[in-house]
């Protein structure tokens, strides 16, 4: 599998993402001004502060030529993973539902947290279609519903928000990929949502950093599961 990792001025975690991807295939950087993704099989929109995060996190990056290409790639079913600032960019671009706001405590937080996969507190909302949808999401392929992953967060604007009706809809469609484990919501996200997928399942965005959880030496290895999933789904 060949991964492309977007690089904007102000990206921070693009090398970390590159490293994580390279554990599950080949990986290369894609400069923000490039409209050509170079035939990659999967795209990571990495963390950082694209364009300084001025105006709003992710608001300017979504208009870059590379993001236009990513939108087309996603529309064609290509797997796209947005991490932290990348999640913000995907939301701003309308590829994922919702928005990310400043943390409730107004402080940047770097903390190891437990994520529960598809851990809907209202299981009755997870329709059979929702279940299938999760199976169609390449990044979640190897992860069972209810499984807990230990992955760090580090952000100042990670409070997930969507209007109530939208939340009900995305929950009903099984679009919630991860929730913070009970009592561990670090930022005030609604319904403890840490990550969501699009309706087709091929686009995943999350605030926690799976690319920083691929080596026991520097933390945990649970983040590798997402990259494995996408690489495995393709084989």
């Amino acid at each position, binding site marked *: 599998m060949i991964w492309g990792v977007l690089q904007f001025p102000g990206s921070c975690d693009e090398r970390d993402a590159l490293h994580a991807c390279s554990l599950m295939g080949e990986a290369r950087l894609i400069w923000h001004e490039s409209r050509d993704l170079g035939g990659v099989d999967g795209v990571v929109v990495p963390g950082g502060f694209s364009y300084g995060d001025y*105006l*709003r996190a992710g*608001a*300017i990056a979504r*208009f870059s030529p590379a993001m236009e290409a990513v939108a087309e790639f996603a529309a064609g079913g290509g797997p796209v993973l947005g991490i932290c600032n990348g999640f913000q960019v995907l939301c*701003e671009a309308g590829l994922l539902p*919702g*928005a990310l*706001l*400043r*943390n*409730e*405590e*107004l402080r940047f937080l770097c903390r190891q947290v437990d994520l529960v996969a598809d851990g809907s507190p209202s299981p009755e909302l997870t329709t059979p279609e929702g279940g299938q949808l999760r199976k169609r999401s390449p990044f979640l392929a190897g992860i069972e519903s209810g499984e807990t992953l230990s992955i760090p967060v580090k952000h100042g604007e990670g*409070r997930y*928000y*969507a*209007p109530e009706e939208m939340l009900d809809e995305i929950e009903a469609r099984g679009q919630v990929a991860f929730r913070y484990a009970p009592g561990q919501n670090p930022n*005030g996200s609604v319904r403890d949502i840490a990550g969501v997928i699009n309706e087709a399942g091929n686009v995943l965005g999350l605030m926690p950093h799976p690319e920083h959880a691929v080596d026991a030496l520097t933390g945990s290895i649970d983040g590798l599961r997402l990259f494995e999933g996408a690489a495995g789904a393709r084989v």
Partner: protein
Amino acid sequence: MAKARVLIRPKEGILDPQGKAVERALPALGFEGIEHVRVGRMVELEAEDPEQLAELCEKLLANPLIEDYEIQTL
């Protein structure tokens, strides 16, 4: 060129921790009777065609999901 000012603020009902923080600080400073503080931002600009501004706000300056905006031409 027409001067304009765009005021952007969190939508009604969205938790605004910045506003809350300001509100919490008020009593200690001796300000009583101030409530519903909302913190937003202001963009000043000059535009040839002020008619474009609404679209600019929808697309870039504000996120309509979470923010309201108000355009003031000066």
